[in-house]
Each structure stands twice: as structure tokens, then as C-alpha cells.
């Protein structure tokens, strides 16, 4: 016999509150009764999320209130195997910080489902806290504590990956406490994960705070800066009451907004340093992780500066990144920018060569003086050539601009320099200088996104060096690395790996700092080739170099440590 509540009565059933409630009870009951967990009593559900149902309960012996998260039977998104699960648990147990809800235990229920016992945080979720009309100054203080807590975990190689208001609670003493550190799995859009994510709703629930690299499914790009992005969304939301971009459309539009749409201007009233605050938020929300704050600590420090009325640190970006962006925007370069970039390049090349030669010289003390003198001469020749090749006819002897800046294109100037390099009789017997110049041309063509010409220049640099100084000359390392980079851009990972490996071999005896960029590219190769073992071994090789040259807690070292987790 059928139960009464199983029978559809009318098409307007939703207007009958009793019927709606019965349907809800049936749905809720399908979760089954509260689990039985040894040592705990009075379990009541207090919520549910992507990973499972959360209960509050009482620890029988101590009478303490605890939170219990019973993981979904079918495994949570990203399906964590038992060994990985145990490893994560062990790692999270090591996190001891007043800002992190402690993991007290874990196990399997009588019904065979995995559970976690955590400190129960009586209080409100972060968004309810900011909605209570808390003063901006006070909120910023709490937010800084959140950043400091996140930094503490990052230093231990643990990334949260799912920072959102529901995972941060303000306790009864007004202290922010972060939940689920290290337990949240990366959000990814890969085909396999869509299945499990979609069945739990976890993906959609976390989407507004997810970083561009997360929604693009670039798991390998997820590092500490992913958390910085989510912190940026939180801060934006708290200050303005809305999200940085529209999240009300369909999934495709929302994903597009996260990966490509710049954040809307921050409308903030009643706080003095609006511009600085906006700058801080926008730096967190950069689509490119390289342009975000490198650490949660630097973010916290900038907010501290705002609170004290000091100027924030300017967004730092590399010359290379800046140039690429500038070039992408303005295909026609002005004389002024050429002169500026040229000056920087000559300076950069000269510094790079000097640096390289100086470090070599330190190792080979016997020829130090000669080498330094040779280097100086070589740099002077490079300088002289570049100035002559790029600028002739553009400036009068008094420095006055002679041509229409709009008519001069950077590509033409580089092509002109490359041609002159082939023909210049004064360089005929100076293979070292010519090799350096070809390498400089290689950089320029790479900057102009002409990989074929960049490749040709690198090959020439290699041929000249090998011919003049032999196949083991350390100067070969840079053009070999360039070839590796070019192959990587083309997706030819196997070829890239062989060039980069040779480059790295040549650098093993020199300054360890110089190996870092090569090893980073080798890590990328291993990723592209799907070689997990090599990926790890490269990272393991990279880590001590980063620690030695940049420090134990440098962003580079933290990221690599996190990637090794």
C-alpha cells in the first residue's frame, strides 16, 4: 500500500505548506538518520556542502561541542583515495593556528562512511558578519587576520583552494576562523570531474570565489596565489556588497566572466583610501597569477599600510610581462618607447653578460682579470652595435627626433638590426660578440611573437659559440634555453626537454640561481608530457635551489613545496 504522501494530489501542491513540508522531510530523510560515531552523542545536521553533511555533536567524555563532517558515500569531488585522504588528514593535523578550526580526529562511521571531527566554531559565517554593518576599519582588521592565517598554512605547503564566506566563521569573540584547510579539493572543469562535481553541487557553490586557473581546469597552475584570488573576491564582496563580475548568467557566461572579464570598479563609500583599497583588491583579482600578490602576507601588509594611511606597494610586474602587454596593445611603437626599451635591453644584456662572466670569473680565479676585461670589451661592442643598428637616422646629433614616431615600427627596427648583424664587417672576427647579439635578437623576436625568427637567431648563437669555444662552453646554456622555450610555446615538449636538459647540464657547475629558470621550464615540460615522476623529481631539484637563493619562505619555495604535496 502506498503512503499518503507519495500520492500526487493536485498540480498546485506547492501552495499547500503541509505538502511542501512532507516532500522536504522525505527528501531530508533520504539522507538517512544521523550517523553513529564512537565517542560522540546528540548528532544533528547543521548543514550540507559539496563534500558531505555537517553535524554538530557532543564529545561524550569532555562534553565539548564538535562539528562532524560525514563525507559523501560516492566520494567527494575529485574523488580522494583512502591513502590520499589519510595523508591530507595527517597534514591538516599539523596545522596549529588560532585562526584555523582544528581537526580533532577522523574515522569511519558504523555505516562505513568516512568522517572528520573538527572544532565546533560557534559564531557566524563571514558574509553574515559583514552584513551586520561592521565598520570597514574593523572588517579590514579581521581580513588581515584571515590573510595571516592563510599565510601560515601556505608556509607549511597547504593551500586552501576553496576560500569562501561559508568556510570562514567569525567566532563569538570576534576572531575569524578558517574551516576545511587543506581538505577542499581543487575545482576543475575536466570532463571526469564535471560528473562528480555536478552531482554534489560543490562546483557551483564555490564558483564565484574560484580563480581563473581553477575554472579553466589548469590544475597545475593552482598554487598559493589561487587563495590570494579568492581572498580578493571576498574583499571585493565585503566592501561593495556584490561580486567583481556578473555571476547571474548561465554557466558559460559565468566562466567567461571569471577568466576574461575585468572586475567592475569598486564602489565604496565612507572609507578614505578608496583608491588604494581598490588597487589592492584589483591586484588580488588579476587573471594572471604572476600579477597578483605573491603571498598572503604581502596582501596583509598592504592593507596594514592603508589602515595607517601609508601608500601601498605598487603592483610589480616584470619587464618582460610589461613589455609583452605593451606590445600587445600598441603594435606601432613610438621612437620614445623604442629608445626606452632599447636602453633597457642594452643595459639588461650588458648586465646579464657581466653577471655571468663575473660569476664564472669567481670560479676560475686564474683567468679572472683577463675574463673581466674581455667581457667589458664584449659588452661595449654589443652596446655599440645595438645603438648603431637601431637608432641611425632617427635622432639628430643634438638628440632631436627626426622621424614620425607613428611611422616607425619596432619590427622594422629589429629586422634592420638583424640584417646589419649579418653584414657588419667589424664583427666578423668576434664570434662571442656576434653570438651574444644573435641571442639578443632571439629575445627581441620572441617578444614580437615571431618564434621562427627567434629560433633562427638562437641557432646562430649556438653555431657561433660551438664553433669558436667548443660544445661544452657555458655560453651555450642561454640560447639552448631559448630554443627550449620556443619549442614549449609550439607545444613540442619532447624537443623542448632535450634542449633544456642540455642547457641545465651546462649550468650545473655555475651559479645555482641560473639553473632556476631552466628547471622551471623543465617542470613545465614534464607537466605537458604527463610524466609525473619527472615532474616531481624536477620540483625536488628546484626546491633547494629556491630555498638557497631566495629563502625558505619565499613565494617560489612555498609554491614548489605546495606543488609537491
Amino acid at each position, binding site marked *: 500500500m502506498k503512503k499518503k504522501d507519495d500520492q500526487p494530489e493536485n498540480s498546485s*501542491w*506547492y501552495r499547500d505548506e503541509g505538502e*511542501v513540508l512532507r516532500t522536504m522531510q522525505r527528501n*531530508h530523510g533520504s539522507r538517512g538518520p544521523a550517523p553513529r560515531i564512537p565517542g560522540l552523542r546528540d548528532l544533528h545536521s547543521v548543514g550540507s556542502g559539496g563534500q558531505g553533511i555537517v553535524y554538530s555533536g557532543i564529545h561524550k567524555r569532555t562534553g565539548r561541542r564538535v562539528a562532524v563532517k560525514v563525507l559523501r558515500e560516492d566520494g567527494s569531488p575529485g574523488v580522494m583515495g583512502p591513502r590520499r585522504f589519510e595523508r591530507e588528514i595527517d597534514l591538516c593535523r599539523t596545522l596549529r593556528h588560532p585562526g584555523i578550526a582544528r581537526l580533532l580526529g577522523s574515522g569511519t562511521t558504523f555505516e562505513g562512511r568516512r568522517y572528520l571531527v573538527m572544532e565546533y566554531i560557534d559564531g557566524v559565517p563571514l558574509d553574515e558578519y559583514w552584513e551586520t554593518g561592521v565598520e570597514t576599519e574593523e572588517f579590514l582588521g579581521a581580513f588581515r587576520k584571515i590573510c595571516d592565517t592563510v599565510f601560515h598554512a601556505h608556509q607549511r605547503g597547504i593551500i586552501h583552494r576553496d576560500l569562501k564566506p561559508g568556510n570562514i566563521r567569525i567566532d563569538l569573540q570576534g576572531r575569524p576562523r578558517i574551516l576545511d584547510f587543506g581538505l577542499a579539493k581543487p575545482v576543475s572543469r575536466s570532463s571526469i570531474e564535471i560528473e562528480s562535481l555536478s552531482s554534489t553541487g560543490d562546483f557551483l557553490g564555490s564558483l564565484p570565489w574560484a580563480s581563473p586557473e581553477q575554472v579553466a581546469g589548469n590544475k597545475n597552475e593552482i598554487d598559493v596565489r589561487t587563495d590570494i584570488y579568492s581572498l580578493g573576491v571576498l574583499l571585493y564582496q565585503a566592501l561593495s556588497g556584490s561580486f567583481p563580475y556578473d555571476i547571474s548568467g*548561465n554557466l558559460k557566461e559565468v566562466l567567461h566572466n571569471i577568466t576574461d572579464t575585468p572586475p567592475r570598479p569598486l564602489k565604496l563609500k565612507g572609507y578614505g583610501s578608496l583608491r588604494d583599497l581598490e588597487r589592492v583588491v584589483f591586484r588580488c583579482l588579476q587573471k594572471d597569477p604572476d600579477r597578483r600578490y605573491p603571498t598572503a602576507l604581502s596582501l596583509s601588509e598592504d592593507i596594514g599600510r592603508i589602515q595607517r594611511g601609508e601608500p601601498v606597494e605598487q603592483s610589480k610586474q616584470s619587464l618582460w610581462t610589461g613589455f609583452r602587454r605593451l606590445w600587445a596593445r600598441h603594435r606601432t611603437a613610438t621612437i620614445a618607447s623604442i629608445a626606452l626599451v632599447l636602453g633597457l635591453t642594452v643595459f639588461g644584456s650588458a648586465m646579464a653578460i657581466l653577471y655571468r662572466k663575473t660569476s664564472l670569473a669567481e670560479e676560475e680565479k686564474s683567468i679572472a682579470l683577463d675574463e673581466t676585461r674581455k667581457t667589458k670589451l664584449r659588452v661595449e661592442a654589443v652596446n655599440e652595435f645595438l645603438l648603431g643598428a637601431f637608432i641611425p637616422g632617427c635622432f639628430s646629433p643634438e638628440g632631436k627626433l627626426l622621424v614620425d614616431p607613428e611611422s616607425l615600427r619596432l619590427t622594422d627596427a629589429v629586422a634592420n638590426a638583424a640584417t646589419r648583424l649579418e653584414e657588419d664587417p667589424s664583427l666578423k672576427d668576434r664570434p662571442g660578440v656576434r653570438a651574444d647579439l644573435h641571442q639578443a635578437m632571439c629575445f627581441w623576436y620572441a617578444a614580437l611573437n615571431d618564434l621562427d625568427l627567434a629560433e633562427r637567431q638562437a641557432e646562430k648563437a649556438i653555431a657561433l659559440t660551438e664553433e669558436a669555444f667548443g660544445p661544452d662552453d657555458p655560453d651555450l646554456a642561454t640560447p639552448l634555453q631559448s630554443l627550449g622555450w620556443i619549442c614549449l610555446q609550439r607545444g613540442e615538449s619532447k624537443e623542448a626537454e632535450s634542449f633544456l636538459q642540455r642547457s641545465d647540464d651546462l649550468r650545473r657547475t655555475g651559479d645555482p640561481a641560473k639553473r632556476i629558470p631552466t628547471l622551471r621550464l623543465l617542470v613545465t615540460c614534464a607537466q605537458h608530457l604527463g610524466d609525473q615522476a619527472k615532474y616531481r623529481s624536477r620540483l625536488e631539484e628546484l626546491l633547494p635551489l629556491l630555498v638557497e637563493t631566495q629563502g625558505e619562505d619565499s613565494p617560489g619555495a612555498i609554491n614548489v613545496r605546495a606543488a609537491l604535496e
Partner: protein
Amino acid sequence: MQTQSTHVSLLHRLTGSGQDSTAWFEFHNRYGELLRSFCRRRGLQSQDSDDLVQDVLLSLSRSLPGFRYDPSRGRFRSYLKTIVLRAISRKSCQKPEEVPLEQIEKLVADPETDQQWEVEWRTYHVRRALSRLGKEFRERDRTAFVQYALEGQSVERTAKGLSMSVDQVYQAKSRILKRIGRLIEEQIEEEG
């Protein structure tokens, strides 16, 4: 994340070029649990139910490109029910090409099947309304609703555990229930 006309626009996105993988993701997110639950009700094992959901999505991907959803010509839920029953029938026969159409028609018209589908469809609406409820209510009120209205805990105990008054618990229940009803009404209107 969803707006009023999303249901119809989602179906139109599905019937488009077929390349919009996010539309499939959304569709799966929205109807996956309904389909799985209905399959279990029809006696399928958990693994088979998952396979069947895939099968339904595949069927839709084949039939939808030529199909323009027109709410005036029939309810989407009836259309979806037919597809699901067809898939269940295929699954039980294991001979995809040999399912007589009459058998499907019979199943579609069967009152018991109809009733099961209706129950699942209501549960789907309730689940969806709950997920849309989101942050409209404070966490404390939502928890009170779950403990008191859904789990049957006494009002006094619920109030004490959450540091609320008994009246506040009653109010939370009443307000949330009303809101859920309105959300479901919206969803059903949107569905057509």
C-alpha cells in the same frame, strides 16, 4: 545562479550547435539527481542508475539538435520522462534496437510510473528551491528549520541549542516554508 527564463534558454543552448559543454554540465547539475533517484525507484542499482543518466544525456544529445522546445506543445517533464523510460527499457532489454514502441507508450501511460515520476519531480523542485534559498536566511534560522521542521527535534531543544527563543524557531520555520513554496511556484511557472 539561475534566472527566471533559464530553463527554456538552457534547453535552447542544448539544442544549438551541440558544442556548449557548459550547457550539458548545467543540465546534468539540474536534473542528474532527479534521474538517478527515479531510476533507483524503478529498481536499478546505483551503478546502473549512473550509466542510465549518461544514456539519457546521450539520447538527448542525439534528439535535441532537431528539437525546439516549445512549452505550448507539451511539458518538458513529460518529454524527459519518456526519454528516461525508453532508456530504462533499453537497459533492461539490453537490446537497444528491439524495444517496441508500444512498450514505452504503455509505461508512459502507467499510473504507477506516473506517480513515481511526479514524486521525484516534486522532490527535485524542493531540492532546487532549497539550493536557491541560499543566503536569504541567516544560518541560525536555516539550521533551526532543519532541526525542528525536518528532523523533528522538539522546538525547545532546537531553541536552546541555537540560543534562540521558541518564537524565533517557529518564525524561522514559517518564513522559510513560505519562501520555499514561492520559489517552487516560480520554478514551475518557468518550466511551463
